[in-house]
């Protein structure tokens, strides 16, 4: 850098000493952290009892703060500042994990614990026809039927559209059009579900004057599903080695048959996974359903005519009634919904794992 001081001799050119380090240094034994943790819990409990804090959360917070502070202070005095910072970071990272797991575990636990008792064969096979909000009984058959029909209709629209678009982007697309499509697929990924609902509302119901129906909801769900399918399919198609395509083309197989017979089958595992994850995502959507399917207590098996229900909408409606009986039904339906979504997810990931070796990686 600045060459103002020209080193006079070898010694000066060595510059400032960097300093030796000892290999050994004092370290906190493992039990000291356990002792600190116990001590912190004791302090938290003690302060909580003395100050009469009624929330266990506050006790825990005090204990956690004491633990973090004491660990840092002790480590800084014994091991030095650098190692104290290292320990502090480790404690905070663990704390983040624990703090985040509490609400997420509680969510799952509450849904299972409050929902499972309400799930019965009767619940799964009956509708809410004639059941008032303060009465017990009733079921979700109509909602399951609605969800399944709407999701299937949405997939019938979204899967071909998404697959073909992905094929275009990977196999054909060049230039401005492909870039525009890529960009707008990204934009579509970020559309709030309620906005997709408003669009179908303004076009299908308000302008073309069709009524509420499962199909109207399915269109909005398809808008949400397409970009997910495009994205995941695109990723999978890109993983298919070019040699496979070239080998097939070199044998004189036309490009479209190469894509259908070689490229898509090679990537089918990953594509299926992506499609199922997209299904799981839209199966839980509520907002567009409120706007477009409207809700119905009775069984309506025709998705093209008249209002239907769906599982997420059912949960929302039952919550809205505000009675204990309705809350029980809401939890039970939420448990069924979570189970539905989780099964889709697990199957999708199972397929991904099962197909992974032949997926052309």
């Amino acid at each position: 850098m600045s060459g103002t001081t020209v080193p006079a001799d070898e010694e000066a050119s060595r510059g400032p000493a960097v300093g030796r380090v000892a290999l050994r240094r004092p370290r906190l034994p493992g039990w000291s952290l356990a002792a600190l943790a116990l001590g912190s819990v004791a302090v938290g409990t003690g302060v909580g009892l003395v100050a009469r804090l009624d929330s266990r959360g506050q006790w825990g917070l005090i204990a956690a703060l004491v633990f973090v502070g004491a660990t840092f202070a002790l480590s800084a005095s014994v091991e030095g500042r650098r190692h104290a910072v290292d320990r502090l970071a480790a404690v905070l990272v663990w704390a983040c994990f624990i703090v985040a797991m509490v609400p997420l575990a509680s969510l799952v636990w509450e849904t299972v614990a409050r929902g499972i008792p309400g799930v019965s064969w009767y619940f799964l096979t009956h509708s809410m026809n004639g059941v008032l909000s303060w009465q017990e009984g009733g079921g979700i058959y109509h909602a399951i039927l609605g969800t399944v029909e709407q999701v299937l209709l949405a997939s019938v629209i979204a899967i071909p559209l998404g697959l073909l678009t992905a094929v275009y982007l990977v196999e054909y697309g060049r230039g401005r059009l492909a870039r525009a499509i890529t960009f707008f697929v990204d934009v579509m990924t970020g559309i709030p579900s309620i906005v997709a609902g408003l669009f179908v509302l303004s076009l299908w119901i308000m302008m073309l004057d069709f009524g509420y129906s499962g199909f109207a909801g399915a269109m909005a769900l398809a808008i949400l599903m397409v970009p997910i399918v495009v994205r995941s399919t695109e990723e999978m198609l890109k993983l298919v080695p070019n040699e496979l395509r070239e080998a097939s083309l070199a044998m004189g197989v036309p490009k479209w048959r190469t894509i259908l017979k070689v490229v898509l089958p090679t990537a089918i595992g990953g594509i299926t996974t992506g499609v199922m994850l997209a299904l799981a995502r839209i199966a839980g959507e509520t907002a567009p359903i409120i706007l477009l399917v409207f809700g119905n207590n009775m069984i309506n098996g025709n998705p093209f005519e008249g209002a239907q229900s769906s599982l997420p909408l059912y949960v929302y409606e039952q919550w809205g009634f505000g009675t204990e009986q309705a809350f029980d039904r809401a939890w039970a339906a939420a448990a069924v919904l979570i189970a539905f979504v989780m099964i889709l997810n697990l199957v999708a990931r199972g397929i991904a794992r099962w197909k992974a070796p032949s997926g052309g990686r």
Partner: protein
Amino acid sequence: MSSPSAPPPTPSPPSPMKEAGARSTTRLGDRIFSGLSKGSGIALLVIMAAIAVFLAIRAGIAIAADEGNFLTTFEWDANADPPRFGIAVLLFGTVVSSVIAMVLAVPVAVGIALFISHYAPRRLATPLAYVVDLLAAVPSIVYGLWGALYLVPRMTGPFQWLDDVLGWTGVFAYDGTPARSLMTVGLLLAVMILPIITSVTREVFLQTPKANQEAALALGATRWEVIRMTVLPFGRSGVISASMLGLGRALGETMAVATVLSPSFLINASLLESGGGTFAQNIASQFKEAGSMGRDALIASGLVLFLLTLLVNGAARLIIARRKEYSGANA
């Protein structure tokens, strides 16, 4: 494309489909298939354009009829004659609840991502990453139900405590009513966007070149110093774009807000007391009572939400694109 049977007087213009140019005999199957796939892509563009156009038309009708100021009016009487409505409260509520969610979720998400990528024992890290991905798939209505029936009653104590300590600021004043406020909404949104931010951030952290981490280790860095020297600088833009994706989710979230918030068309100085609203929540809550003009007004507010999320997602894409260039230059 010109028909092969009648040779054109001038050389045919280069075909947009490269097969046609490359081979003399264009197979019908190829043309149909490439046309179909191109058509799908164009259909997506048409849908996007239609969304913007139809929302804009409806919004235009509503805004033209609005007797109040669409941006500043603190009312929502869209079904009255003449209609008076404005989005001031909704914009405030949407932005505030999402910002609370971001402030709470991003540091914790980065912490969990680091935990999975660099701290957790391997036997714990893999299943944990799996669980986080599964949690990202839990439907928002379930979060909403949990928020309304489990979280809200449990927020009274902490809010009371916040009021004791920070009540004098006004922002954290609390009157002891059920905690169906923007703060609770923000907290619930934070829990909801935590898994998605975590899983994107984790992927970025795991991509940090091992060579750089080993270089830092070999210089005598502690684990935290390795993270600070290599993982965090490398993952910074990834964290930002993950946060933006989370923000986009929080802005557009409907059900979790509709179930938890006790809405009103006021801006309450205190974040802990009920009141306020968000775009998506307002649409879901008002829809069933809305007449023709009421729906148009809701669509107008939906258009603002759409633009807001476009802005946030666009920013996220821009950051990701920059990052690609950046890492490409270093490859």
